[in-house]
């Protein structure tokens, strides 16, 4: 190997620098992962509470009164507490799980390694990015314990419900301010992270690592960070304006002459649609911020398990790029019946439908690459294949929601809930799981338990379909979302279906504890991992040890000779050729 030695900082020795305020991207990645893990279990338990309430409205949940005496007297969830739990579930999941885990956690850990760098260019920013995000999480969680609880306005916080203050409901005073503060802080964290990701990809690539030699996951993180850079930069001022409406008496999002609780509100001149425009301008890219890293991880996990490269590296990357571009042009499809100009609805409808094309290309590339492959079945590949199945199912319900005319029937029903849970919730979670099982050996030097992994997969896969497929039927029947109880006559026949979903959700949730057990157990007592357990080619499998040393490559930077996914290469000495292998090969499969 023709590795070039570089001088490097000595690894830190103090506990604080090593584990808490670490500048090492690997530690920061693990910290993000830990945060996401805590957040996802909190979010999941909140969803349990909601589901149980929806199935059996008057069932007392023992101990819940300890969390909120007024919200759950005697353990029975009140309607407003249901909405507060729902808002927190959504906020936690969207921001602190689906953004942090696939993007910030894995991206931090593996992006620098995959481009062949010692670290990110701005380790201090990186550390700040995590701790700022952490503070955001703490601020958000604190709203459970402050005043009359967290906000009940939904994660979209539509004004004026969110902007007029405590008069509009429990948690709408302090709760909203804390919510908006947490999100604004979160935005700063992700901006810092995005800055680092982009500069890492552009400027830190090791010798021979051209842009087209970056693996899919690195490309996905790169594209995601460009979206993050601009989307979070818009949400932040929007949140600040919302806070101003609360604490400084401005009326950016509140029109005049509102009579709430018998009092005319002092606000005037603002616009509720303005909040929706600003929020969704961030909100739609956010959906892709959650899912594009998943697509990258799945491609990255699939290739070693297919023992062949995907049909086309470039088409895949261009498709992800196209999704990123389109994500800014379609945000209005969240607002078809919200009172937006009806002509705009049509204008937004077409780019939304066009999104089908890159999405289809991505799926077909995966499927076409499955054709004639030598598929290996293991926990990561199962989750990656599960991702594809979920992504197809969730994506196809987008056909309906992209059309304003059909949206008249389906807007704000469980159809929407089913759609986004499958496509950006469960699919993204499957991406996270695939990444976890795949990279765990590299991150901790130990293998995760395969049997438990497979059990976890089966329960999650079947469970997720049992939960979210019926959501579509509920939606078609007109079941409105964000209802803590179903009092309408026409919803009565649907309650048995809700109970079925609740049972499925509780069981699927329990299955996640298998994953948690597997994670913790394998961390300490797992089988020691071989150097390259998946016989993969990208740079993270060329580090001298697992986990990689402080400077990733042991004082030397690797040199890259090949495209990232060289499997089943004809005439090569083995079935696969590492990116760092100087072996001359005939690049057979990839046009890149």
């Amino acid at each position, binding site marked *: 190997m023709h590795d070039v030695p*570089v001088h490097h900082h000595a690894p830190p020795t103090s506990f604080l620098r090593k584990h808490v305020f670490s500048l090492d991207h690997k530690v920061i990645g693990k910290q993000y992962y830990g945060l996401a893990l805590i957040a996802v279990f909190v979010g999941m338990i909140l969803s349990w509470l909601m589901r149980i309430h929806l199935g059996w409205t008057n069932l007392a949940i023992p101990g819940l009164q300890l969390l909120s005496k007024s919200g759950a007297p005697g353990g029975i969830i009140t309607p407003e507490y249901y909405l507060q739990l729902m808002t927190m579930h959504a906020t936690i999941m969207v921001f602190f799980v689906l953004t942090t885990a696939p993007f910030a956690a894995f991206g931090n850990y593996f992006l620098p390694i995959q481009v062949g760098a010692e670290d990110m*260019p701005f380790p201090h920013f990186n550390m700040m990015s995590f701790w700022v995000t952490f503070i955001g999480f703490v601020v958000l969680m604190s709203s459970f314990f402050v005043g009359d609880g967290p906000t009940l306005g939904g994660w979209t916080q539509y004004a004026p419900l969110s902007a007029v203050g405590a008069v509009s409901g429990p948690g709408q005073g302090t709760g909203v301010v804390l919510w908006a503060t947490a999100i604004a802080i979160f935005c700063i964290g992700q901006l810092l992270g995005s*800055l680092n990701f982009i500069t890492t990809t552009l400027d830190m690539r090791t*010798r021979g690592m051209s842009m087209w030699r970056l693996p899919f996951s690195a490309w996905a993180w790169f594209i995601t960070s460009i979206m993050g850079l601009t989307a979070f930069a818009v949400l932040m001022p929007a949140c600040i304006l919302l806070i101003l409406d609360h604490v*400084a*008496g*401005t009326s950016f999002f509140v029109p005049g002459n509102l009579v709430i609780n018998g009092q005319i509100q*002092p606000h005037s*001149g603002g616009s509720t649609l303005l909040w929706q425009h600003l929020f969704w301008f961030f909100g739609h890219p956010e959906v892709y911020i959650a899912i594009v890293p998943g697509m990258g991880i799945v491609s990255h996990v699939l290739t070693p398990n297919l023992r062949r490269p995907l049909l086309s590296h470039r088409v895949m990357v261009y498709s992800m790029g196209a999704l990123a571009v389109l994500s800014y042009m379609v945000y209005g499809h969240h607002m078809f019946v919200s009172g937006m100009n009806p002509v705009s609805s049509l204008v937004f409808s077409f780019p939304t439908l066009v999104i089908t094309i890159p999405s289809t290309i991505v799926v077909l590339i995966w499927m076409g690459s499955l054709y004639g492959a030598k598929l290996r079945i293991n926990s990561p590949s199962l989750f990656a294949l599960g991702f594809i199945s979920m992504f197809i199912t969730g994506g196809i319900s987008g056909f309906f929601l992209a059309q304003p005319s059909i949206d008249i029937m389906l807007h704000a029903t469980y159809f929407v809930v089913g759609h986004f849970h499958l496509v950006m919730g469960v699919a993204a979670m499957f991406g996270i799981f695939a990444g976890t099982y795949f990279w765990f050996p590299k991150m901790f030097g130990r293998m995760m338990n395969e049997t438990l992994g497979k059990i976890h997969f089966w329960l999650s896969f079947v469970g997720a379909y049992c939960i979210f497929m019926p959501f579509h039927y509920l939606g078609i029947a007109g079941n409105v979302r964000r209802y803590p109880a179903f009092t309408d006559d026409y919803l009565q026949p649907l309650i048995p279906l809700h109970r079925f979903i609740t049972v499925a959700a509780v069981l699927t949730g329990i299955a996640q504890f298998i994953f948690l057990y597997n994670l913790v157990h394998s961390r300490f007592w797992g089988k020691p991992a071989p150097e390259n357990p998946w016989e993969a080619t990208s740079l993270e499998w060329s580090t001298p040890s697992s986990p990689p040393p402080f400077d990733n490559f042991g004082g030397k930077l690797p040199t890259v000779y090949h495209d990232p996914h060289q499997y089943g290469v004809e005439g090569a000495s083995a079935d696969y050729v590492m990116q760092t292998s100087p072996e001359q090969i005939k690049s057979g499969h990839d046009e890149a």
Partner: protein
Amino acid sequence: MSHADLTLEGYSAAIMPPAFSIPAKKMAMWLFIIADSATFAACLVAYGYLRVADAHWPRPFHSITNVAIMTVILVTSSLTMLFGIDAAKAGDKAKAVRWTMITAAGGILFALLHIREWLGLIDEGMRLFQNPWGSALFGASFFSITGLHLLHVTGGVIALIVVGIRYKGGRYNSDDLEITGLYWHFVDLVWMFVVPLVYLLNLSH
């Protein structure tokens, strides 16, 4: 020397040349500028949206003198920043520091004039939530947009002074000065949009 320093000094034997042939720090500043433009654009779009929707938007500004002086000061400080960077590139450290400090002084002057203007408006009864001339949103949008800009100016002045001193002490080099300059020019650039949109369109006739 860390990996990051390698990219900064264009030491390219071990790594690929940076994508746009600029050091990582400069790239980061450009990325920050892109993000910040999105932030300001969102604020200005929000302001425009609310202003258009109100047929009786107040136009209370009588005089352009103050804002004209502020504009000249800010644009001039951009020019002095450039002189400082040029001197630094040419190796004339003392001159570079001098020009940087003059730039910072321009920033401080701008901020002081701005605060004086704010105090004047507050004196006339303008608040975030009300003003004597009409739509309450006038004060809200004026204070939040110019406030955000003022925050940027303040941050910029602090950055200029810190970087200037550290450059003098040898901890930072001319590139760092140039990157700080990029930020300073951006603050200037935002002002170029704030002036016509927030001030000139609200001028009383």
